[in-house]
């Protein structure tokens, strides 16, 4: 059973405000309001859009109008950025309630959050901060995922992080940690291929080894994005998950490897900085679509249909 099927089924009990689009086999991009006129002017509707949940947590106004318009014509992936699922403290229940009402209001095809924390005490840090991987953090993160899934009434996809540091206290590999979370909570996974490449470079392991160890069979969505390069204390490359430039060729290569193994999973090209005109961003989504289309499973005719 994959996450998308379950999500489609759960929607049906709620009654629809928006069309129940499928995202199977589609590539899309981050939705930026400045692109809306160009998107609406297109004759052909194809693909889907990802929105950051927090941007639509205001009471009303033009942000909601823009999302209503895009959701009327396209499937949407609702991507939470600051639930702080990976934090040691209890989830913010007010934030969880806002997240839940967005899920109800917009009936997104996909819902996702991060394996990271962003709030501690009363301070919101506006970054995806890392956590050590131990039995203790595993239990707490699993509880947080359960809490989110119970609140919204459907499973989420949990995204693997880009990290720049490791914790001496860690006792588990990230891939084992993620696999255990899937087993405990029934969540699906959002595989960010750029994050795989960034973290592998930063921590000195092979991205292919990571993918081999990652529970790919639970991936319901893929992210692609661009990164920048700095240097670590020893002068070696330290990659930054910056989302401000096109996807790197080596990330495209990893993406194709994943798609070859798992088939055409819904894929978002993320862009959050130095945002280009719509045609340039759309071209990246089309490049992803071309790779997905090369790996559509061949559906064999059932024997009784053959004359």
């Amino acid at each position, binding site marked *: 059973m994959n996450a998308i099927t379950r999500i489609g089924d759960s929607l049906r009990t709620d009654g629809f405000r928006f069309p129940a689009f499928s995202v199977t086999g589609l590539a899309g991009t981050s939705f930026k309001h400045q692109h809306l006129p160009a998107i609406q002017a297109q004759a052909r509707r194809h693909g889907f859009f990802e929105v950051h949940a927090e941007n639509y947590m205001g*009471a009303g106004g*033009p942000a909601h109008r823009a999302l209503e318009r895009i959701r009327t014509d396209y499937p949407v992936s609702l991507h939470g950025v600051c639930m702080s699922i990976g934090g040691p403290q209890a989830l913010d229940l007010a934030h969880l309630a806002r997240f839940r009402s967005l899920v109800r209001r917009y009936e997104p095809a996909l819902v996702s959050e991060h394996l990271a924390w962003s709030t501690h005490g009363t301070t919101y840090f*506006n970054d995806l901060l890392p956590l*050590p991987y131990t039995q203790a953090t595993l239990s707490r993160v699993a509880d947080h995922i359960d809490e989110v899934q119970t609140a919204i009434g459907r499973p989420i996809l949990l995204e693997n992080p880009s990290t720049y540091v490791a914790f001496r206290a860690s006792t588990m*590999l990230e891939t084992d940690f993620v696999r255990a979370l899937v087993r405990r909570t029934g969540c699906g996974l959002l595989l960010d291929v750029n994050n795989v490449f960034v973290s592998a470079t930063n921590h000195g392991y092979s991205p292919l080894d990571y993918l081999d160890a990652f529970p790919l069979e639970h991936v319901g969505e893929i992210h692609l994005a661009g990164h920048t390069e700095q240097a670590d204390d020893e002068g070696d490359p330290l990659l930054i998950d910056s989302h401000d430039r096109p996807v790197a060729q080596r990330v495209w290569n990893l993406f194709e490897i994943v798609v070859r193994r798992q088939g055409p999973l819904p894929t978002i090209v993320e862009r959050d900085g130095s945002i280009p005109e719509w045609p340039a961003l759309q071209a990246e989504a089309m490049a992803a679509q071309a790779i997905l289309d090369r790996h559509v499973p061949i559906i064999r005719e059932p024997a009784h249909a053959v004359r």
Partner: protein
Amino acid sequence: MLSGERARAGGHGLPSYADVLSPGLFDPAYGTPADLTGPNGKGAVKRYNVYRNNVTVSLIDALAAVFPATQRITGVDFFRAMARFHIRATPPRSPLLFEYGRDFPRFIETYEYAQPMPWLADVARVERAWLDAYHAADLPPLAGPELAAIPPEALASAVFEPHPATRIVRSEFPAVSIFVMNRGNGPVQAIRNVVPEDALITRPDQDVAVRVLPPGGAEFLTQLVSVTPFGEAAAAALEASAEFDLPTNIAGMIEAGVFAAVHAGEPS
């Protein structure tokens, strides 16, 4: 894949990883937490600095997004230096960054280098109000006929329900003119008519509107917004300014969409 794997006794009474990572994210005086490492014994100074930088830069960017006219007035370098002080003193307490910056105008008033621009804080107040109006709940504004339907004898004690987007910013400076001139990319000219401007910010439908209120208008609307009966509000406005003109202000408040509803009072 992860190096230096080592179990640590469960966290009873020990500071959590978030306790250890957090203090240095805003304060450069803190060193790199000892629990952090790179792979194969590599250092973590620059690695931890990535997080410090992400936090500071992204929050400065967030303030710049809320206060674009303020940034245009001060210039980018001035603004970012000022914002850096503010985010360290007053980091966000909500993950909703469109709520951030409510204390920023007050900070600007106390910021030493902003003292030559005494009107800057009021421009920032208009910008903060603009964003509140932008995200406010959708509600149709009170229409003229609804107000006209109130019997004349019940008008004095009528009370108004403010529209969720409505904000009033009072200023001793031409805050609205400065705001309007700096909010876009158009040319900036000297302001010849240096008069106080009270701002009215509304969003009757999808577009936020910023207007200069006529004399006494801010007093009138502030009273009405705080549910003072109509008659008392008009009297207070007249007391605030002898130039207060009631018909002009009523027409203006309907046109701007200041209120969502009116409730007839007891006939007087």
